[in-house]
């Protein structure tokens, strides 16, 4: 066979992996997991330790017709959290997003009562329906914020019909989780952030997608103190969590899994085993959510 140059010979010096200065567990070893790392239990396949607060800021319940989702009931979602040592999650109903917004929200009201030890609720809001008793939902301490899924509601995040909800959220300091699949979504979220500074806005799926999308996420998070990103869509490459933390800081990134669209195991494990300090991981896995959702 012909001798050809190896890849290491072909590469430029700039093509080395992005290595962080901050080592895991405060040791000088970049990669070696040690027993006191938050990720240590993942390597052993064990639940997370009790002293680490883990909260899923982007979770769902109920089914879609698009494909066979498994174990999508509130009880099953909560059961997985219990098994893994995840302290809780804030859920919106897929039914609210894909079909009947009102029915889904009522079912979330029921779900957070039945799974009270694990589940909190987002009220999914639709630009097509302002006839919602917001006070009734947010008088319930289990409802911690709003969910906006403009794409499925055939709208856009900057649709003025959402202002009705943004104004309420701003007046009551309620956070809003956005489904943000395209770069333009983060542009629109930044516009909302500027107009409604008292609400905290979470760019769902924001931390893990393409370079173009992440540029808008980074711009929005850097520019507005009330904007955060979450980790859903976490099949992204190893190094993605570390990279986005370098860009926006661990204070602005939240663990979210999108369960039951996906299992939550892969993303919580990936964050827990990332090359970050334990302090950074604690913020991402739960402490940021605690502050945003006022848990």
């Amino acid at each position, binding site marked *: 066979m012909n001798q*050809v140059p190896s890849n290491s010979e072909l590469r430029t010096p700039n093509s080395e992996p992005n290595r962080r200065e901050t080592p895991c567990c405060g040791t000088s070893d970049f990669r070696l997991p040690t027993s006191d790392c938050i990720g240590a239990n993942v390597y052993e396949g064990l639940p997370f330790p009790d002293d680490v607060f883990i909260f899923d800021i982007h979770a769902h319940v109920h089914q879609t017709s698009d494909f066979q989702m498994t174990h999508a009931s509130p009880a099953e979602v909560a059961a997985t959290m219990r098994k893994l040592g995840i302290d809780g999650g804030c859920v919106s109903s897929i039914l609210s997003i894909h079909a009947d917004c009102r029915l889904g929200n009522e079912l979330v009201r029921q779900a957070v009562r039945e799974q009270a030890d694990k589940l909190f609720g987002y009220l999914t809001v639709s630009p097509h329906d302002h006839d919602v008793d917001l006070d009734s939902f947010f008088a319930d301490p289990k409802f911690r914020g709003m969910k906006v899924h403009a794409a499925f509601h055939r709208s856009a995040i900057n649709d003025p019909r959402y202002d009705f909800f943004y104004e309420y959220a701003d007046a009551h300091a309620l956070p809003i989780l956005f489904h943000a699949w395209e770069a333009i979504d983060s542009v629109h979220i930044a516009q909302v952030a500027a107009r409604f500074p008292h609400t905290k806005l979470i760019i769902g799926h924001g931390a893990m997608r393409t370079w173009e999308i992440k540029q808008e996420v980074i711009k929005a998070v850097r520019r507005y103190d009330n904007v955060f990103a979450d980790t859903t869509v976490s099949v992204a490459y190893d190094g993605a969590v570390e990279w986005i933390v370098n860009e926006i800081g661990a204070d602005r990134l939240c663990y979210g899994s999108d369960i039951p669209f996906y299992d939550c195991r892969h993303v919580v494990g990936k964050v827990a085993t990332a090359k970050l300090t334990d302090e950074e991981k604690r913020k991402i896995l739960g402490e940021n959510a605690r502050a945003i959702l006022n848990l």
Partner: protein
Amino acid sequence: MLRLIDVNCRIGAGPADREGSIRTKEALLSLMDDFHVEKAVVFHTVSQYSDAVLGNELLLQETENDPRFLRQWAVQPALWELYPRPDEWLAQMKENGVCSVRLFPKQYGHSLRRYACGDLLDALAECRVPAFISLDQLASWDALYDLCQDYPANRFVLCSPGYRCLRYLVPILESCSNLFVETSNLLMHDGLSDLCRHGLGGRLLFGSGAPEASLAAAASQLLLSDLAEEEKQIIAANNAEKLLSEVAL
């Protein structure tokens, strides 16, 4: 501690390597160390995106003297004298310790039907060389079913089936005993447990899609699953070892 064999890795730069992503063999080995991945089946990105033969040669160079990498070649059907004939592929694979192949029909632009691939796939079947193929290289799930049915003596490993796959994947697995599934991106909630509970655990091979996809995510999905340790081990390494041990080049 589980022994892991990752059946879906690549070496080499891709056209869309992303910020912060792993780009060197050494970095991949380091990640494998973290998760106790003993060995990884690897193909070369140059094979996928540019030239099968050149990529295969690069793979040999990059994996030389490193037994943790199980070499996988990209193959394609003969066309005049441009690519090796099936017997030539197999002779070269034997000579270089290559124990599986990868098919890229969409990327390379060829059919998998007998008129195009019959000779190649028959030769692979004779030597029990498993052929790996990603879902995104197939026109449809029906194309996967047809492939398994048209070549019943071959062993196929479907890679990266995605989390929306169950309504297609399960009936195909139940109809086609020659199909195995690699687990990266098989991310349904409790999906691994469900597949095992329904008797399909023997058909699952742990894989990550690294470094394009996350090895940490794939490993966490298996390690944190509800499966018993023995079941995890079957998926983690045993199924792959069995499949590859039966190769008779």
